[in-house]
């Protein structure tokens, strides 16, 4: 579950002058023809770096994203919800596995990525730094966070890097279930007893501000961004994703008689775009840099899991084994 919102902090723009012009031309021509890039192809360093960064953040978002909903597995009400919740959280862990593998094909090991996650060196989607207080919060995540992720991931699946596209195709297929499951759970709450309605409205109120930041702030249109879009690393701007999400899901929220906690939210008939209160980007920056309600807990949980499992990995380690990057 990843909205792409973190990539905005641009890394230093490497000078393409240092790349071999003939190879660069061939590489760009391949992408322009609509062909995918595969792991052993020549690629500019900037392309490699940006992809590693993006896929790695995506992977971290999946593994951390499993935590808020994971705490609701044992408490999920009834068999139907219970099994779906388990399968859903399992999928998030599965997605992390697929994405780490895709990033590995570009040359960063899973060991290094997990170390960077736990030590706060690489980021994950900011929304998972907020808590899931009730079952209703878990339902809102399953529905709307996954919905947002699908908007971003469907766009990225058309990107130029073969292994990432393959992973995303499968991820999107699985998330179609998450989305429907989340919607089903929210509909049951919204059309259910007064208590259930109250719970789901409260959860929506809590989650709306983080949801609005899920895709990140407006992109600064720089040569950097243009290059990444030409190379089909970045497939849509943050605002495009946000607008598409609002278009698809605000009507579905409203039809349930729920209110969105933003008095300025409405579709502007002249521009065809949604107007909304600008999210608090200062809070976003503060939280993404570590000062959110759950940052410390999320990383501590991940770290504890790694440390408690260390004896298992030590026991099975074959010192003669040779690590080879996954093939595709």
């Amino acid at each position, binding site marked *: 579950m990843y909205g792409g919102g973190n990539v905005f902090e641009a890394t230093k723009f490497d000078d393409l002058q240092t790349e071999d012009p003939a190879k660069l031309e061939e590489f760009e021509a391949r992408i322009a023809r609509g062909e*995918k890039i595969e792991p052993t192809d020549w690629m500019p360093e900037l392309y490699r770096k940006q992809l590693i960064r993006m896929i790695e953040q995506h992977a971290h978002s999946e593994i951390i994203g499993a935590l808020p909903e994971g705490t609701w597995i044992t408490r999920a009400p009834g068999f139907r919800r219970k099994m779906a919740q388990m399968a859903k959280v399992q999928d998030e862990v599965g997605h992390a596995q697929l994405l780490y593998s895709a990033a590995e094909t570009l040359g960063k090991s899973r060991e290094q990525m997990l170390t960077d996650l736990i030590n706060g060196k690489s980021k994950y989607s900011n929304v998972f730094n907020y808590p899931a207080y009730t079952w209703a919060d878990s339902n809102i995540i399953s529905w709307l966070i996954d919905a947002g992720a699908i908007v971003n991931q469907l766009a990225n699946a058309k990107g130029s890097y073969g292994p990432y596209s393959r992973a995303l195709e499968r991820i999107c297929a*699985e998330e179609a279930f998450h989305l429907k499951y989340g919607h089903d759970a929210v509909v049951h709450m919204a059309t259910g007893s007064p208590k259930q309605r109250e719970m789901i409205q409260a959860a929506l109120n809590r989650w709306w501000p983080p949801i609005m930041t899920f895709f990140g702030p407006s992109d600064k249109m720089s040569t950097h961004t243009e290059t990444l879009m030409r190379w089909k690393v970045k497939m849509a701007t943050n605002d495009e994703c946000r607008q598409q999400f609002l278009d698809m899901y605000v009507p579905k929220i409203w039809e349930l008689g729920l209110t969105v906690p933003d008095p300025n939210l409405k579709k502007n008939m002249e521009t065809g775009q949604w107007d909304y209160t600008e999210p608090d980007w200062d809070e976003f920056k503060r939280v993404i840099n570590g000062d959110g309600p759950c940052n410390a807990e999320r990383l501590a949980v991940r770290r504890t899991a790694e440390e408690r499992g260390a004896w298992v990995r030590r026991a099975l380690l074959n010192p003669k084994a040779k690590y080879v990057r996954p093939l595709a």
Partner: protein
Amino acid sequence: MRLNLPEGEVPAMEPKPELDQFETYEAFHQKKEGTAYTYVGPVHAPNEDVAFLFAKEQYSRRFACTGLWIARTENIQVTPYGNDGENVYDTIQFDEPTQRSEQPEAYEIFHLKKRGKAHTYAGRVMAKSYPEALAEAKKAFGDKGPIVNVWVVKSKDVLQSAEEDKDMWTTIPEKKYREAIAYKVMDKITKYKEENKPTTAQ
């Protein structure tokens, strides 16, 4: 899981040692009896048996499956990638083998038909080395339309699921709770809307 998490500032975690996440194995699955095995992705595992356990759940829990093959990444030889629409067998160099077995051995051949898609099983050849296997593969399957990449692996390096274990996959189609199609809420929404129509009187 109730974890006793540490309080306060914690020092940075020591970087994970090499091979902490083990080596990698590549997995291929068969969706339906009689169809070609297709590449699904890698797993990290300490050995082939564990890799099988892992790949079975990571790659065959959500879609129909009738069989699974596992091969250690290191044991798969890969050709360069060609352009879409071309046949890579026409451009690759067939290197002199550095090692040759005394007797011909079986090799499994996988083709990628288009960049971005997945490698699929082409068939088996007999050869005394990887380059010879590739040359044999060109003769046997090299004329079948565009092929942008070829993987070659010795048959003995491929762990194949056993015929008698096929029942491990029989219940997958019944696990509807993990299918989007199992969730139908239009009735509830329609009913809710009808009962809560906005009144025009206001």
